[in-house]
């Protein structure tokens, strides 16, 4: 069945998942949805929740085949919790598990063999970087990898579509009552935003920490009333790899050029006025454009009311300088951001659902004026792909991309026209992750394309000297340099689903076909 972004979703996948095809970002606006919750085992003994090992926690939680275990990715490339738990499940002979993680990456490479042996048969995640993505694309996962946005994940959990049997929450600090903090331990991650829905809705909640502190642990981000057990281990994460997600200030002229175009566009837009709200990523061009924009804010005495989303040093610097009033933070990409959220009273922790869930009475993304996002591919329908590489392999994550794109008044994609020989601007994305209806502007090193549905923005840029052009022209430039790419060949088998934030199917990911030259 063809969906609203022109993708053919196989009937058997609709049947297998019970899902509908994507019908537009605002299809369910105003719908009334009942939320589901979980069982609570009443506890009235006032005793310690600390257990001696992950093994004991698994036994106490009644681990058995076919369960769904959840994890957060705040320790990023330094995470040790997911691997430790899965390793123990494997040692206990548990099979047919579903991992429901907020994201996964190369830190999880060691569990790849557990796909083949059937310990893990289904994965839900924002996306999968590293060897697991490759293994899924090559067909090593027996079930499906369902990739959801950060907001979509909260919706799935809250609606009961994803039933988490046991949530494992890596916590930089914990007391024996289960108050969990993100700072003051040995592997600080700043915030525990993506673990919040798990704590609120999972059947059992197990905190894993390497820093057990005396009761009461304040400030806590996840409260002890939600936590069943606490396990202390030697190390939950490698602190040198936790806060390594932000790009260093770039000297790449191509990125600086895009950054300049981007900040000039923002400054010329009707949204750049006192009290605007903003979100940006942590790529080199995004960070540089924030710095250029800050110059413009100083020049015109304009202040940002609110910065939203993942944080890194440049946004914290602007907060300190007084150019930003408040930051609401869901993830910290460097140590400066970790420190800032711990110390600055105007830098706040928010939960994943507050940030981006479509199943709320409005999340923060809907208050965004401007969001700056990256892309692996953008096609001439303005559809964006951030999950599947042009070679057909799963290699990225949705993150908050579709959520912020849907919510923001002005969604700007910043991407070079080509990466190596791969044209970023193309006829049709390998996989659609963010629908073109939510994408307003594409900034490249060869010019800026405005979505024709935004005639107001086209009008607003008429008198600027910005290189405004069409998306087709950008594609033509890209193809004139790289050559027109062949369509990547896939097997029939569907290995993954790109879930839209409302739970419908945006696209499917098929198993890759090994390349061979035709005669």
């Amino acid at each position: 069945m063809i969906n609203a972004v022109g993708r053919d979703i196989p009937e058997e996948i609709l049947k297998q998942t019970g899902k509908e095809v994507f019908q537009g970002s605002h299809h369910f606006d105003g719908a009334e949805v009942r939320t589901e919750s979980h069982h609570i085992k009443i506890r009235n003994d006032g005793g310690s929740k600390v257990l001696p090992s992950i093994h004991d926690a698994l036994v106490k939680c009644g681990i058995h085949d076919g369960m769904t275990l959840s994890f957060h990715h705040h320790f990023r490339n330094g995470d040790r919790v997911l691997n430790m738990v899965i390793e123990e499940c494997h040692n206990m002979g548990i099979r047919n598990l579903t991992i429901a993680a907020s994201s996964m990456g190369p830190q999880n490479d060691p569990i790849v063999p557990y796909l083949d042996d059937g310990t893990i048969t289904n994965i839900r995640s924002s996306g999968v970087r590293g060897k697991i993505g490759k293994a899924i694309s090559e067909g090593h996962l027996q079930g499906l990898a369902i990739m959801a946005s950060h907001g979509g994940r909260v919706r799935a959990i809250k609606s009961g579509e994803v039933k988490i049997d046991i949530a494992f929450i890596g916590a930089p600090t914990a007391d024996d009552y289960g108050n969990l903090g993100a700072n003051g331990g040995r592997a600080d991650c700043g915030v525990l935003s993506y673990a919040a829905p798990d704590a609120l809705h999972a059947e059992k909640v197990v905190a894993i920490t390497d820093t057990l502190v005396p009761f009461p642990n304040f400030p806590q981000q996840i409260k002890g009333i939600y936590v069943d057990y606490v396990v202390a281990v030697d190390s939950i994460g490698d602190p040198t790899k936790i806060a390594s997600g932000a790009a260093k200030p770039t000297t790449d002229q191509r990125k600086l050029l895009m950054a300049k175009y981007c900040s000039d566009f923002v400054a010329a837009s009707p949204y750049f006025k006192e009290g605007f709200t903003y979100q940006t990523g942590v790529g080199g061009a995004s960070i540089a454009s924030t710095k250029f924009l800050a110059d413009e804010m100083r020049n015109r005495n304009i202040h940002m009311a609110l910065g939203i989303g993942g944080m890194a040093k440049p946004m914290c610097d602007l907060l300190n300088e007084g150019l930003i009033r408040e930051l609401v933070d869901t993830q910290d990409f460097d140590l400066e951001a970790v420190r800032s959220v711990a110390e600055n009273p105007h830098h706040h922790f928010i939960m994943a659902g507050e940030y981006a869930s479509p199943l709320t009475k409005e999340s923060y993304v809907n208050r965004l004026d401007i969001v700056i996002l990256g892309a692996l591919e953008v096609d001439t329908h303005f559809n964006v792909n951030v999950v599947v590489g042009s070679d057909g392999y799963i290699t990225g994550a949705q993150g908050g991309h579709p959520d912020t794109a849907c919510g923001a008044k002005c969604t700007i994609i910043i991407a070079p026209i080509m990466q190596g020989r791969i044209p970023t601007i193309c006829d049709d994305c390998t996989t659609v992750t963010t629908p073109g209806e939510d994408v307003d502007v594409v900034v490249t090193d060869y010019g800026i394309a405005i979505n024709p549905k935004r005639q107001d923005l086209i009008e607003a840029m008429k008198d600027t000297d910005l290189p405004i052009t069409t998306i087709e022209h950008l594609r033509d430039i890209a193809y004139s340099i790289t050559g027109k790419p062949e369509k990547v060949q896939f097997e029939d088998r569907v290995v993954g689903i790109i879930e839209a934030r409302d739970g419908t199917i945006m696209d499917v990911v098929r198993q890759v076909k090994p390349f061979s030259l035709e005669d």
Partner: protein
Amino acid sequence: MEIKKPAIAGTVESSDCLVSVEPGDGKIDFSLESSVANQFGHQIRKVTFETLERLGVDNVKISIVDKGALDCTIKARIEGAVYRSADQYKDLPWGGAIQ
């Protein structure tokens, strides 16, 4: 042109390719390993055969390890490897066989 001895040109840096040539057994023997094979594998083979034809090479084992090089880079690396294999470093036919 005759491939007299094994020769290489290029690197395996991103956006480059490493071209190796050696004397063939009566035909063009082409092998390719490319990070963009799925999208550009056939195009790389086409450019390789066109370049070899222009150079008058029809007896060669040529292998390319490609890291996303553009066509112009691939051509240049093939030309480099072929002239090295013939020990020709002077009087190169710029604008002729070398485009």
